[in-house]
């Protein structure tokens, strides 16, 4: 089973969390990224994710593998949505199980931070004023002229 997945369909967080269970796991940390109704002070209506799928897949797998090497964890999974999402939709899910909570939290944080930095996925936000724009990792527009 891949540890990282790009999904065109709704993410089933509950099923994913069940997949982390293990008798020696005493802790499970999860992170969910939801589509917010605003960014940098602008009202957001929806967004599209574009991805360079083969590289997103391999880079995502690499990140989860790094987390397994760096932290004493039992299981880890990450699923990122592609396509068009509405406010409140689950855009990315990360889950980590471990014997102890420190490793679970740290690995979960590591995975989402690295995914946002390195995985070739791009967010195009559609604003209430009719404009749209591709975003930077820091959530500012890619091209100053866009705003």
């Amino acid at each position, binding site marked *: 089973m891949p540890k990282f997945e790009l999904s065109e369909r709704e993410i089933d967080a509950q099923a994913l969390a069940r997949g982390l269970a293990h008798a020696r796991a005493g802790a499970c940390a999860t992170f969910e*990224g939801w589509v917010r109704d605003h960014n940098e002070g602008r009202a957001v209506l929806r967004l599209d*994710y*574009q*991805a*360079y799928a*083969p*590289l*997103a897949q*391999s*880079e995502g797998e690499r990140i989860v593998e790094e987390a397994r090497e760096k932290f004493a964890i039992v299981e880890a999974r990450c699923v*990122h949505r592609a396509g068009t999402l509405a406010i409140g939709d689950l*855009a*990315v899910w990360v889950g980590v199980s471990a014997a102890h909570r420190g490793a679970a939290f740290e690995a979960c944080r590591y995975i*989402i931070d690295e*995914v*946002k*930095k*390195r*995985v*070739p*996925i*791009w*967010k*195009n936000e559609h604003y209430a004023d009719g404009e749209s724009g*591709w*975003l*930077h*990792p820091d*959530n500012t527009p*890619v*091209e100053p*002229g866009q705003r």
Partner: protein
Amino acid sequence: MNYRVLYFASLRDRAGMDAEQINSLATDARGLYHELRARHGFTLGEERLRVAINGAFAPWGQTLHEGDEVVFIPPVSGG
């Protein structure tokens, strides 16, 4: 040589296409990007981009081969 170039995000919008086959004298990704930047009016400089060749990140100076798939990766914004 012939390369296949894929475009994403703001580069796709500027180029007005997802992908193109290109015949170029460029022998590495740096040379190829300079050529395409001039052609499509890309505003992102090399320092803002990463390069992937045949689905893996690669250095700008890596020698290209006939038929390589080259992707210039704008700053990502997943999550």
